[in-house]
């Protein structure tokens, strides 16, 4: 049976109809940067590998340590990070931010690599200390004209999602091979942190 042949015009018309039906939203009425404020904030932590490494490492370490650290660390980090972000928004300078962020990846990665098990308070204090540097970096980089509230919520939620990613990966800790793999992952985080430290110093 012969299939009917379609003329080029017919194909062009079909394509045009398809394109029209797939039209995207115009997003033509942003108010006070609301359309982009959340997305800019959400993208900020996940667009920098130095942030990603440290925050995933927090989740990995929490998963290694188990309850209650598995949720205390991811709660402590955004709270203290917000303090750092507040300092950044207020224009309070903080020296050595890039060093602090790189060092956070090195030390948190090392904690995962060697499966360090300090008291919960010490672990939370270590995580909280470095969170200030990450928060300050986010706070000082709010683009002008964007909604500060939605920008803040965006980067807090993105940070939480990165912790959740780390915890999710860290659930392999229940198996022996998973424990070894987590240590390897910690080593990779250390290497990444060392690279960013080298970039900061150079």
């Amino acid at each position: 049976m012969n299939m009917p042949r379609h003329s080029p015009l017919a194909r062009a018309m079909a394509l045009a109809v398809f394109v029209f039906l797939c039209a995207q939203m115009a997003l033509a009425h942003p108010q006070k940067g609301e359309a982009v404020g959340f997305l800019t904030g959400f993208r900020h932590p996940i667009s920098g590998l130095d942030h990603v490494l440290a925050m995933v490492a927090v989740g990995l370490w929490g998963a290694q340590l188990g309850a209650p650290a598995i949720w205390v660390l991811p709660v402590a980090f955004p709270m203290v990070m917000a303090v750092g972000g507040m300092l950044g928004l207020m224009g309070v300078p903080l020296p050595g931010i890039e060093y602090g962020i790189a060092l956070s990846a090195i030390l948190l990665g090392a904690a995962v690599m060697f499966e360090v098990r300090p008291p919960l308070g010490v672990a939370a204090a270590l995580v909280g200390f470095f969170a200030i540097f990450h928060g300050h970096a986010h706070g000082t980089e709010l683009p002008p004209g964007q909604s500060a509230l939605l920008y803040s919520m965006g980067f807090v939620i993105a940070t939480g999602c990165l912790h959740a990613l780390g915890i999710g990966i860290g659930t392999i800790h229940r198996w022996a091979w998973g424990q070894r793999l987590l240590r390897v992952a910690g080593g990779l985080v250390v290497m990444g942190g060392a690279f960013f430290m080298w970039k900061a110093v150079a």
Partner: protein
Amino acid sequence: MKNASPSRLPLYAFVVFTSVLCAFPAEAHLNSTGMGPFYDGLMHFLMSPEDIVPVLALALLAGLRGASYGRRALFTVPVAWLLGGLAGLSAMTTRPHPFIAAAWFLMLGGLLAAGAKLSLRVTTALAALLGLYHGYLNGIGMGQFDTAAVALLGLVFAVFVLIALAAAFVVRLRAHWARIAVRVAGSWIAASGLLMLGWAVRTR
């Protein structure tokens, strides 16, 4: 030999293409048309993070404590919101204080993160204060429109639905990790409050 029948695709494509070109305006932009005052009020609440987040935090907090707390918040907040809104409609113009907005985020988010075991009386007081304050601010903003009272009803309806959904969702949670996840959400709200505070200081 019989000729192949001509394709009907060009005809169909032409009809659809013409229909697409003759489409009526969607009138999807509230700036030009509006959806009626009731839905305008409802959408105003749903698109205002500074209103919706504290209400969500209170609903989650009440839901964590149990069904009786959730029910109390469910009826207290909308009623207080309506009363505050009615008071705001006839009030002199005033600007919302950014520190107070940040304080609501901080307090409710902090209580939720800490899993605070508030009494029913304190929960009711918090719900009433939240509703009165935010309703008053909404009322002031709406006071210039003739249909403000209807819009306020739509807004209160949205508050009611949000609390009902959020509190009922949390009341049903039994798994330990799920309740912890709700508290983690509280820490995010508190963190956003801290950042709002920094922003308020910066813009003063």
